[in-house]
């Protein structure tokens, strides 16, 4: 079955540590890729997205993600996390249609 996998379900980091969250998808062909963030008590917000072009995508709040077609991955990175980055992060894919497939999410806790 077609799916989106986020391997890290819970991540705990200290402030200033570097972050990398994994996302793999199982679709062949052209895909559009997204990372969403859900801060505690808030709704999902778009962090960044990739449709085409430069595989290194920069988003809001210092986040970036790299699309690697050969490994079907779209990993999220941030060089130095802050306490305010504590949130749940979701990877999502669509194949040029309006149907988005979401991963199961990664809960990030940043210790002050």
């Amino acid at each position: 079955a077609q799916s989106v996998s986020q391997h890290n379900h819970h991540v705990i980091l200290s402030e200033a540590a570097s972050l990398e969250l994994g996302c793999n998808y199982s679709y062949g062909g052209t895909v559009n890729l997204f990372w969403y963030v859900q801060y505690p008590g808030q709704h999902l917000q778009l962090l960044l997205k990739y449709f085409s072009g430069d595989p290194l995508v920069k988003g809001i709040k210092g986040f970036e993600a790299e699309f690697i077609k050969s490994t079907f991955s779209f990993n999220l990175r941030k060089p130095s996390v802050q306490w305010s980055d504590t949130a749940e992060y979701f990877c999502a894919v669509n194949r040029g249609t309006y149907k988005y497939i979401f991963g199961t999410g990664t809960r990030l806790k940043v210790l002050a």
Partner: protein
Amino acid sequence: NAGVTQTPKFRILKIGQSMTLQCTQDMNHNYMYWYRQDPGMGLKLIYYSVGAGITDKGEVPNGYNVSRSTTEDFPLRLELAAPSQTSVYFCASSYSGVSSTDTQYFGPGTRLTVL
């Protein structure tokens, strides 16, 4: 713009009761979606709509119904609530759904508990 709004924020239902979750967007978006979010399961698409009068099933439509009489509103109906429908429900909208410049905007969610 208020964006995507949902009511109620919280609700407790008894088994067998019915209710409607309201969703409204003021961005003139054509596409609207209903998702449920269960712990450790991510978001699952329940129903979606590509315009007024047009709706279709997503991954997990059983036990739900929708209608889209206007561009702005996309209510989700639970007819006979079951404990398996305990979840957080998110409504979302997007302009076209397929454009490279398109983005889904989410509402704040409705936390539903069925006892």
